[in-house]
């Protein structure tokens, strides 16, 4: 059962890195968070610790419902349709993510646990999303995927780290809220979300 969920996460990660439209990215993120929540449920069921269930509920509420809501609300105001000129064009980002996944599998070979490797892959995809795109929202989603990766990383490593999980989840929630408000402000002052206009603080 966990293998299926992990494969879904892997597929969503690779797919997300190539999406152009932010709405698709949002849905991809929601799907990913849902799978992570189910993963926690499965882990909880498997090991019998109660804190996994609490984590399942928390991730479900925040990452599957609230954060995508924030993203879609800020998207509506910004009339953002599609990512026009991406630094890493669609095909290239797929290829880069593919190579990254392959490398991480080879390099982290001696770690038996799949979760750990998928966590790393999620972090790398988050990074690629952030560095390869120009729109602010995509960067935000990239960052949140990276946080998801850290959560996965944490689940695989630390058996009893409840405080860490709660910390991460709350932090992601507040982070998403603040970024949402900021995107709203940027959209109001710059009336575009392209970060090229956000680079006149030079030297």
């Amino acid at each position, binding site marked *: 059962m966990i293998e299926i969920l992990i494969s879904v996460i892997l597929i969503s990660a690779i797919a997300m890195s190539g999406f152009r439209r932010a709405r698709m990215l949002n849905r991809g993120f929601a799907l990913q968070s849902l799978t992570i929540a189910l993963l926690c449920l499965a882990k909880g069921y498997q090991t019998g610790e109660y804190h996994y269930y609490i984590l399942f509920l928390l991730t479900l509420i925040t990452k599957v419902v609230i954060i995508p809501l924030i993203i879609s609300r800020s998207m509506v105001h910004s009339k953002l349709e599609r990512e026009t000129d991406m630094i890493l064009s669609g095909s290239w980002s797929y290829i880069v993510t593919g190579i990254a996944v392959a490398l991480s599998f080879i390099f982290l070979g001696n770690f038996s646990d799949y979760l750990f490797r998928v966590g790393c892959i999620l972090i790398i995809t988050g990074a690629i999303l952030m560095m390869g795109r120009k729109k602010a929202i995509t960067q935000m989603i990239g960052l949140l995927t990276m946080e998801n990766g850290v959560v996965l990383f944490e689940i695989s*490593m630390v058996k009893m780290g409840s405080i860490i999980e709660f910390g991460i989840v709350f932090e992601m929630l507040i982070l998403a809220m603040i970024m949402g408000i900021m995107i709203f402000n940027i959209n109001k002052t710059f009336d575009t979300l392209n970060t090229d206009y956000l680079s006149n603080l030079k030297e």
Partner: protein
Amino acid sequence: MHINLMIAVFIAAISVSIIIKNIDVISYVNILGTVLLLILSVLIGFDVADRGHIFHFGTAVYIDSLSQIQLLIITTVSVMTALYSHKYIKGEYEENIISLTKAKVYFVLFQVFEFSMIFLCMSNNIMGMWIGLEATTLATAFLIGFSNSKLSLEAAWKYIIICSVGLAMGLVGIILFIYSLNSEINTSMLQWTYLLSWDKGFSKKVLMVAFTFIFVGIGTKAGIAPMHTWLSDGHSEAPSPISAMMSGILINLALYVIIRFYIIIRLADGLQNMRYLFIVFGCLSLIISTFSILKQTNYKRLLAFSSVENIGIMSLGFGFGGVLGVYGALLHSIVHAYGKSLLFLVSGNILNAYQTKRIGKIKCLIRTMPVNSVFLIIGILVITGTPPAASFFSELKILQNGFNNGEYLPAAILAFSLLIAFAGFVVTFMKMIFLNDGAEEYVRLEKDKENILPLVVAVALIVLISATFSSLLNPLINSAVEIICG
């Protein structure tokens, strides 16, 4: 007991600034809050002085002399900035640049920012430290974008993205750190004191990777070289009191967190030359920041780069190791906090009077704003390390330690970059203060008299530190050095 009082003061301050409508009352309460926190931290200081370290709420809160130093810095600098922001926010509010709600948001976030820093340096739990750092990032994100101009929004966006990425890497590092204990993990495992007394050995490889993640991750928050890019934008766009607090305290705290992990690292055998991480990144940040100082046209960005440079000096101090270097680095962090906040507050005054951050546009400060230029000169002399100020002794100790331990190249880089930074400072600021093109007659601005009290407090603190660091503060700093050097 004091710590409960602290929390009570915090909650009171937050609630007042949310409920009450009158700006004056809010800022007075804010100042009162910071003063109370200062008094409480001094009292805690006395406890720590005689009992070595104190626990509270079971082992959740742990204060030893190292965190006591950070506590003192936080509370003193926030008293200064609270005093400054009283007139600053009132001025902005009266010229209705900002609405009432914006002012209230400012004071709430100010309190949240200060308390999250206090929470950070008091928490025994390493995850608590991480959450503290994250909370400061979130609190200051809005404060940087306070003036809602294009540039400040851009700075805020960059700040939040880069710092969150950095802290995510830091979190990965912490998780790897706990994983390297390779034993059954329970909640008490996250206590720093527990980790300190951990004797069942670490897996060396994982620990190395963990500490590198922590160093680079939290290093972004500290403004260490290649990851310092947010610092120069954030500090130059943030309102002056906030950039004073960030430059003075926040980057010290990030380094404090790294040092907490470094103390545990040092126990594991075979990891002695992890200190080269500090040295390499220290030299990198020295070189990058000092050369950027030379080419600055915006004086607040120049001060931000000088913070990067001072972080480089401190990390070199820790990198050289040895009692002298660590003593120098700690002393330098204290003096730099006060000196840098003095400079930022003065630049705030100048910005308030001249409404421009460009160095070229400000002429003959000595005649237009004589009082502020005197404080500016004192600030420059303190930051660049002239003798009566303690920063000269700290730089001397770090350099001496560098030569004693045989690292000649990093010490040479340190000396060279001190010189370049000094040249950059003197050329820019002395031209601003003295140079006049003789054409028009300069009259003293009436804005010169505003907001002088916080500057006086800052100079008083610097004088206090310089006078007492070898007598009164000595036991405090020495015990902190023992914690680090073992």
